[in-house]
């Protein structure tokens, strides 16, 4: 590939937000930056008080067994205190490129859904790469999923109303959980909400090339994340679909998927391809490509029109799923 593809333009409001915050959010990532980001300044984590929402949720943390031989894992569990109907469950895998973040990242949006649709929110603390390479992170996520499904009665939710959800790396982990639950006779799942998911370690789509050096989580950052998870194996012939769901050869018999992504981000083409392959396999998927959206745009600029529209589309899908 010798020609350079012109990138699609950012949405005007989102482009302005990027400009305004340019010094805070470099598009790329390396080891030094990772250390700086892990030290916390850029992470806006909700406090326990935020999670309680004035008593709307009971917040607890449970330490549950990892997969055989693995260390225990922590689950953050937020349960509606006054549900207006039977409870369901959203099992959440947080984002952060496989190398960053913790169980509270992204939970605030889940709580919005939980208030509206009577959901217990369970968010898993999985070990991060590069300290823990594949399969450690997905094993932790799967162990938490098994425990959650087995303890549905104790947690008070109807096990037929359980969905997966995650953004970015968390979207990739959610997609991997759906594949693994299908393959290993795991819990039945009502749906999978894949928010601009990180699916393909090969990192070589036109969108990955187009957006190099631009926006958020560019091709270089993506290579950094995948290499942290997979080491030398990244992009090679032997990558498990539980690490990189785009590697799955069979996308049949999966729970209905919601996939969204921005047109101006690395993941655009791999996410569009994933939705297309689900349809080609006879499955159900809803795909939204938000024009001019960069990676994580609704988190960075939650008040922008496109962010409102993207979040409303997720809620409309949930509404059909839970009330349809």
């Amino acid at each position, binding site marked *: 590939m010798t020609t350079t593809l012109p990138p699609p333009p950012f949405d005007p409001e989102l482009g302005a937000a990027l400009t305004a915050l*340019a010094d805070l959010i470099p598009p790329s990532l390396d080891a030094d930056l990772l250390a700086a980001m892990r030290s916390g300044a850029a992470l806006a984590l909700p406090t326990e008080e935020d999670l309680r929402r004035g008593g709307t949720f009971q917040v607890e943390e449970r330490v549950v067994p990892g997969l055989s031989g693995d260390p225990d894992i922590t689950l953050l569990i937020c349960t509606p205190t006054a549900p207006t109907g039977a409870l369901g469950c959203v099992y959440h895998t947080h984002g*952060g490129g496989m190398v960053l973040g913790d169980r509270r990242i992204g939970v605030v949006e889940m709580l919005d859904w939980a208030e509206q649709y009577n959901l217990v929110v369970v968010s898993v603390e999985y070990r991060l790469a590069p300290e823990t390479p594949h399969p450690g992170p997905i094993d932790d996520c799967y162990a938490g999923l098994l425990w959650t499904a087995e303890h549905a009665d104790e947690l008070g939710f109807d096990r037929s109303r359980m969905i997966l959800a995650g953004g970015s790396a968390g979207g990739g982990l959610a997609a991997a959980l759906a594949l693994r639950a299908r393959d290993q006779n795991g819990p039945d799942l009502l749906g999978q909400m894949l928010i601009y998911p990180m699916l393909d370690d090969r990192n070589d789509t036109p969108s990955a090339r187009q957006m190099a050096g631009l926006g958020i989580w560019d091709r270089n950052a993506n290579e950094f994340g995948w290499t942290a998870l997979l080491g030398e194996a990244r992009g090679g012939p032997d990558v498990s679909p539980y690490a990189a769901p785009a590697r799955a050869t069979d996308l049949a018999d999966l729970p209905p998927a919601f996939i969204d992504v921005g047109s101006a981000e690395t993941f655009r083409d791999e996410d569009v391809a994933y939705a297309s392959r689900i349809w080609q396999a006879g499955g159900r998927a809803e795909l939204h490509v938000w024009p001019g959206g960069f990676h994580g745009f609704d988190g960075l600029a939650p008040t922008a029109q496109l962010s409102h529209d993207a979040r409303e589309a997720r809620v409309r899908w949930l509404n059909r799923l839970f009330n349809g």
Partner: protein
Amino acid sequence: MKDLAVRLAALDADAGAALRVIAYFDGLAENKAGLQAIVRGAAVLAGCPARLDDRSRRVRVRVDPAGRAAPDPSAADERWMGMAVVPDASAILWLERIGEPGPVEAMILERAAGAARAVLDRTRGRAPAEDPALVELIVDASASPEVRRQAATSMRLSESDRFRAAALPTGPQVFPAEATPGIAGRPGPGPAAASPGLPASPATPRAGIGPAVAPLDLPASYAAARIALRFAADGTAEDPGPKVVRHEDLGGLALLADLPDSADVPDLRALEHAAAAGPWVLSTLHAFAEASSLRAAATASRLHHSSFQDRIAQAEHLLGWPIRDPHGRLRLQLALALRRLRRHPST
């Protein structure tokens, strides 16, 4: 990587906030964002509802601080922080917050108004009244009534409607009478309502506004507007005062404009002498002359009451007459008005 960056919504008045405001609105302009996005930016960054009311183009946009469109038919509260989007103030950007804008709010107003002006010029076209050749004609007393009638028709000015002429340093403008001219975007009755603390945008030109008249009487309105323009200040430290003045608010002051520029006025000489003592003198005298009380003037000058009082005493000494009694205050106001007239001679 959702949530990993500081959210735009969490911007506060830290040292970098003003720079981010500038970058944000510059980014909107560069990406050719629309009015809704601009008003949304103002609402989100200020953390209160924001609205754009453009009476001449009938555009109304209102957005809440979460970024959602929130139409509200009620009129703007004139105590809100506002800024004119166009010089005649027929379009105003408001932050729905009462009080003096702080530095970040002032920056938001200025940048959002500038971005909105660019959009209005680009997408809505200039109002017909802004065609310079026609405007020159319709305010020209030496043009025949027939020529002016034709100009009114071309500009689509109905004979049954009322219009005002505005005099700007660059020339005349005409706009519908119901558009309320304001001071730095704040509609108000005139010079007395000037708010010394309200930061006037450097982009807002000086303007004089004539009375509302039928289209064919616009030459008279423009003549009055040109007089009012002479009473409009640059809004700087050397020339403090309102940048927009309506002729009908001048009252008898307007007669001062008839004085020959060479007329010797001792009080004016005394004022210039006092002003030479330091930049604080004019701003102090102006604040005192415009405010309803010494205390209000101190607040507007952001000074402690007693420090302000010290300055007044010093200024009185420099002027050579007391200004805290009604007569002395009137002399001061007249001297300030005369000084502005001298700075802005008739052309």
